[in-house]
């Protein structure tokens, strides 16, 4: 006499949970991609754990604390490891609204992922977008730090070079003022003959362009 009850339950189950059912979500796992050699086999125990995690997520919703594991129905499990699931209400007559399930899963996505050693990419809830973790954003961008270091070194080196040039020039100027004075005195005298200064006569004859001069042209050949 239990058999009719069993068939009834299975029939209701099949009605509530089937691909593209109302309020049903498809889940896809990529265990081998995530874990490689350490991949576990997906069996009914893993399914039980999944149902437990979903029930746990639903119990966190304020009006749904009475959700049990038996309210979460799984169906169409494939070799891909993908399946559909729905969450029914305590009466098991109809399913909970998709919006509630969606927000519950989103809030606890991290716990669900960790239970299966997976992440958002390898445990996919189709039609439930996950909240992505913000990227690591240090308060000061790293490039500014590197820039500051390099720029300080460059400024210090430039200042050192400029200062050493100034010091070098000052030392040179201190060493040679005596010689400069003597040369200036000689250059300032211009010989004057018949009222005509001699200097212009010397330079008026033409300007020697060294570019067109070869060595043997400087001296006239014999």
């Amino acid at each position: 006499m239990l058999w009719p009850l069993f068939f009834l339950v299975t029939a209701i189950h099949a009605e509530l949970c089937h691909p593209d059912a109302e309020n049903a979500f498809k889940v896809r796992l990529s265990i081998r991609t995530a874990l490689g050699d350490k991949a576990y086999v997906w069996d009914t125990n893993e399914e039980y754990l999944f149902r437990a995690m979903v029930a746990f997520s639903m119990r966190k919703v304020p009006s749904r604390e009475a959700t049990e594991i038996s309210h979460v129905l799984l169906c169409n499990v494939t070799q891909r490891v993908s399946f559909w699931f729905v969450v029914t209400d305590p009466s098991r007559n109809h399913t909970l609204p998709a919006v509630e399930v969606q927000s519950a899963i989103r809030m606890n996505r991290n716990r669900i992922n960790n239970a299966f050693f997976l992440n958002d990419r390898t445990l996919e809830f189709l039609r439930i977008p996950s909240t992505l973790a913000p990227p690591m954003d240090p308060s000061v961008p790293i490039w500014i730090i590197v820039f500051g270091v390099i720029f300080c070194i460059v400024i210090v080196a430039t200042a050192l070079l400029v200062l050493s040039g100034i010091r070098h020039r000052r030392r040179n100027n201190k060493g040679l003022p005596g010689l400069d004075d003597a040369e200036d005195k000689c250059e300032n005298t211009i010989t004057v003959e018949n009222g005509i200064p001699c200097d212009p006569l010397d330079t008026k004859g033409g300007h020697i362009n060294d570019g067109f001069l070869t060595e043997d042209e400087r001296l006239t050949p014999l």
Partner: protein
Amino acid sequence: MAQASGLDPLVDGEDERPKWDNKLQYLLSCIGFAVGLGNIWRFPYLCQTYGGGAFLIPYLIALVFEGIPLFYIELAIGQRLRKGSIGVWTSISPYLGGVGLGCFSVSFIVCLYYNTVLVWVLWFLLNSFQDPLPWSTCPLNLNRTGFVQECQGSGTVSYFWYRQTLNITADISNSGTIQWQLFLCLVACWTVVYLCVIRGIESTGKVIYFTALFPYLVLTIFLIRGLTLPGATEGLTYLFTPKMQILQNPRVWLDAATQIFFSLSLAFGGHIAFASYNPPRNNCEKDAVTIALVNSMTSLYASITIFSIMGFKATNDYGRCLDRNILSLINEFDFPEQSIPRDEYPTVLMHLNATQPERVARLPLKTCHLDDFLDKSASGPGLAFIVFTEAVLHMPGAPAWSVLFFGMLFTLGLSSMFGNMEGVITPLLDMGVLPRGIPKEAMTGLVCLVCFLSAMCFTLQSGSYWLEIFDNFAASLNLIIFAFLEVVGVIYVYGMKRSSSPQGRRSCTRAGCRSSACSCPSCPPCGSQELLWFSYCPSTDRGGRTHNWREVQ
């Protein structure tokens, strides 16, 4: 008698001109100036587009008949006349001073935008010191459910380049604002350049040991790494497989000539400036051949490195394309994970197409061919900032490779900047623009400041459009005209006899008629050059004496 008196008129009075500490500094400076960013991102692209190994034929022909002779002329007149570009041309003839002025102006303009490329390189270099690299992921959108829409459409690297670096506007008429991160990098770049050229060749001569040799070290490291990556051989065979029939296209020859011309950085005045600090007895013919050959060998070496890495990237992209298709199939038909290896994908797809075509048709499957990915060549900044940065992302230890790569680009560009800056500073020093009391450091500082203020326009949001305009119009045609005028000026005006050495004396130039014959007919714009040479050569015995402007006393 001249020898007995011990006076060498060429050296007399020139002692105050700065000198290279040794020959190696001079060679490295010229090599550093010639070897620049174009060797990395222009030559491999040309090699690939124009039939691989076959392109080397027009390239070598252009090198021998155009590059080396022009280069030789520049080094010779610089060393002989011992002045910068303006002084040299004014010496040859006052009417040719404009050529020098033109070279000077082009050097100035190129300084501006070449350093802007260095600014971009510096920005990428600074951002490489983090793991994961900032261009590996998209930023998140506002409600953190996904990535920014623009980034998803264009790809992470393109987004980082166009949005987070340039913040580019839609077109050039929309200038936008100055990007402060690029502005900071601009300040840093010009400070680094000032630090290096502060005392002219005394300071660049010290830095050039590092900036000229470091790129070779990095290229070698990348070559070794690249050859060990999977897919390198596909890239190399694709690059070097010669396609001889492409040589029938005249465009190939023109591009080879253009490439060798710009690769050697001719007609900028920088080589003239470098050579002017040489002792007059230096053998500049050997230098010209050496430097030109080193430049071409570097191009070849760099293209091998680049293409082994591009081969790796293409193989990687091809594998990912296949994997995406396989995943779509597995997800749709619920096959077990990893049940379709890459080799069996075509057979499985055919089978599914036969049995369930409507389901397969709904899937977003892309056709994946390795050749398509190898064909995706790029040149210019696109190669460095988009294609190569993406390739580096997939290499293990990506930040280290990124730092090395952008460090190499920075030093390559910096050593070319030295040549450009010398092409600007040496003529100014020779002309005595500023009073003698003002030290050289102040003069170079002033030049760098003017360049920095002018280059600020490239840090606008529309800056890269302006840079493209400068790159296309400032240098290319002008330099070719200047080079033409240079050849005319030296051969016809200055006189070939002056360029040839008196018997028995080893002098700067050993060029006789023969070498000038090489340079005349082969320059691309020089059709009329041939005519000039044929008309002038028989009259060299006159020595061109009537052309000088020395007044006879």
